[in-house]
């Protein structure tokens, strides 16, 4: 039930950020549909198989979307939903950036940007050498595509013909201080990945069926899915705004947001 998974994750992420005073809710709402389809439907991962050597590897490079990542994973059964209750608070297991330590199913701690793709390429090369047919998924933000390490790894993935490698870019066109195209333009973005030797598809990053199909499709080359998203998706006053990267919803704003999620089919 990925659609309901995404809705429940949105409710949790909003509540977590509001309660703890953590920012990045806009980034979490942006990527929750991608993560819900990935963890809930497409990737060969499961709560009882987090140590299975044959599992798919899912790496979330945009570690600042932690509230969304944790919410999706908890509701998908990887760890108790109660763990979300003290997110970001003193002594919590769950910090403001994705951490692997002690969190079942999280493969890599992230937070500094541009780290998961090289790591994923290393895993995929190891699989290639060992003849293992598992897939490696890396979720990137669009803003972090300014990090050179991503393009170093993109070169290697194409050079080694890593067809098990799939990158999903949360293309919400916003970063901390403005629109990606105003801060450090990425366009022509699809062409860039293509020029680096990747097979590229563009999808609506909130359309679960389209996401699932794009993720399931295998290609002969490393695959990049540019998922066009809306930052803050699901809460009207947060959608496509710069400020909700940083702002924290107060109680009143949280109530309005939750009300919208109850009535809106996400």
């Amino acid at each position: 039930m990925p659609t309901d998974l995404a809705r429940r994750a949105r409710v949790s992420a909003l509540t977590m950020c509001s309660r703890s005073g953590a920012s990045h809710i806009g980034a979490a709402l942006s990527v929750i549909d991608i993560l819900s389809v990935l963890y809930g439907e497409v990737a060969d991962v499961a709560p009882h198989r987090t140590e299975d050597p044959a599992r798919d590897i899912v790496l979330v490079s945009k570690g600042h979307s932690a509230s969304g990542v944790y919410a999706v994973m908890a509701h998908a059964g990887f760890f108790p939903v109660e763990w979300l209750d003290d997110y970001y608070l003193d002594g919590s297991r769950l910090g403001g950036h994705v951490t692997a330590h002690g969190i079942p199913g999280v493969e890599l701690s992230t937070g500094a940007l541009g780290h998961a793709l090289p790591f994923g390429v290393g895993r995929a090369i190891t699989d290639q050498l060992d003849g293992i047919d598992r897939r490696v998924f890396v979720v990137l933000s669009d803003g972090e595509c300014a990090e050179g390490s991503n393009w170093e790894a993109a070169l290697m993935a194409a050079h080694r013909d890593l067809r098990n490698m799939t990158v999903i870019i949360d293309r919400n066109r916003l970063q901390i201080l403005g629109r990606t195209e105003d801060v450090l333009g990425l366009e022509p973005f699809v062409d860039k990945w293509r020029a680096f030797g990747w097979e590229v598809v563009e999808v609506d990053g909130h359309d679960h069926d389209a996401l699932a199909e794009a993720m399931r499709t295998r290609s002969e080359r490393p695959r990049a899915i540019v998922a066009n998203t809306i930052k803050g998706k699901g809460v009207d006053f947060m959608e496509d705004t710069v400020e909700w990267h940083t702002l924290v919803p107060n109680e009143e704003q949280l109530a309005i947001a939750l009300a919208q999620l109850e009535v809106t089919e996400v």
Partner: protein
Amino acid sequence: MRDAFVKTLTAEAAENPDIMLLVGDLGFGVVAAFGDTYPKQFLNCGVAEQSMVGMAAGMAAAGRRPFVYSISNFPSLRPLEQIRNDVCYHGLGVTLVAVGTGLAYGSLGYTHHGVEDMSILRSLPGMRVYCPADALECAAAVKEILADPSPAYLRLGKNKEPLMHDAQPDLASGAPLLIREGTDVTLLVAGPIITQALAVAEQLEPEGLSVRVLTCPVIKPLNAAAIRAAADGTVGIVTLEEHTIHGGFGSAVLEGFAVNGWRTPILPLGLADEATHIIGGQEWLRERAGLSTDHVRKSVATFARSAA
């Protein structure tokens, strides 16, 4: 020393298929043998050190033992955040191998001088740091690194360093290794600059100063108690490194003694806090940097007299 590294790793790889050698398009004429022998355990990652270390972390997470090989600061400072976050944060068994550290690439200029690496790498959590003085210590360090699954940094000279030992030493305890017996003052050395230390000891002998010379290839975890024991009976310790004195080997020794409350006089010798703009070979630069035999001899003699 670099040949000893490749030779040792090649021998280990024969029995350990998890060993991987990743190079940043460096090592012409040096690493080819490994790649030829074990093509599935060798990867030239191109001039892309950040992704090289990130990839190594990914391989280590899959159970491999990657060695990331490049020269000077390229496998350490360039991908520092990857080392910190991807390797150390996850406690993964990635080893960074830097060839030609110190002033070994002297005439290539300051960009190629590896003179702050130990300070920086030493500060990373769980990172082991090895600075061998010769090929035998290098081979021993590789074995020691492989004996434990944690991150490591192997800081090497270039090549043709004179041998300090008859056989491969055991580095398991981290204790310093006696190279020359002496009774008055202890000269404790990290790395190939040991040759300078031995020349100094030789020159001070006729002046009536007996210098005990040791190498200390295990910088972290530092065995301070063994260093203290090794200096027993002398007036104090002079540390010598081809590296900044800010945070390097000498600093490690000072910290080790200070936290234990040991009041042994210690004089750290190393490079001053400046980016050098002068061009020259290793010996010439040592001379200019206050690490010539002459400088070190005077410093050791003065220290020995004042500490006595």
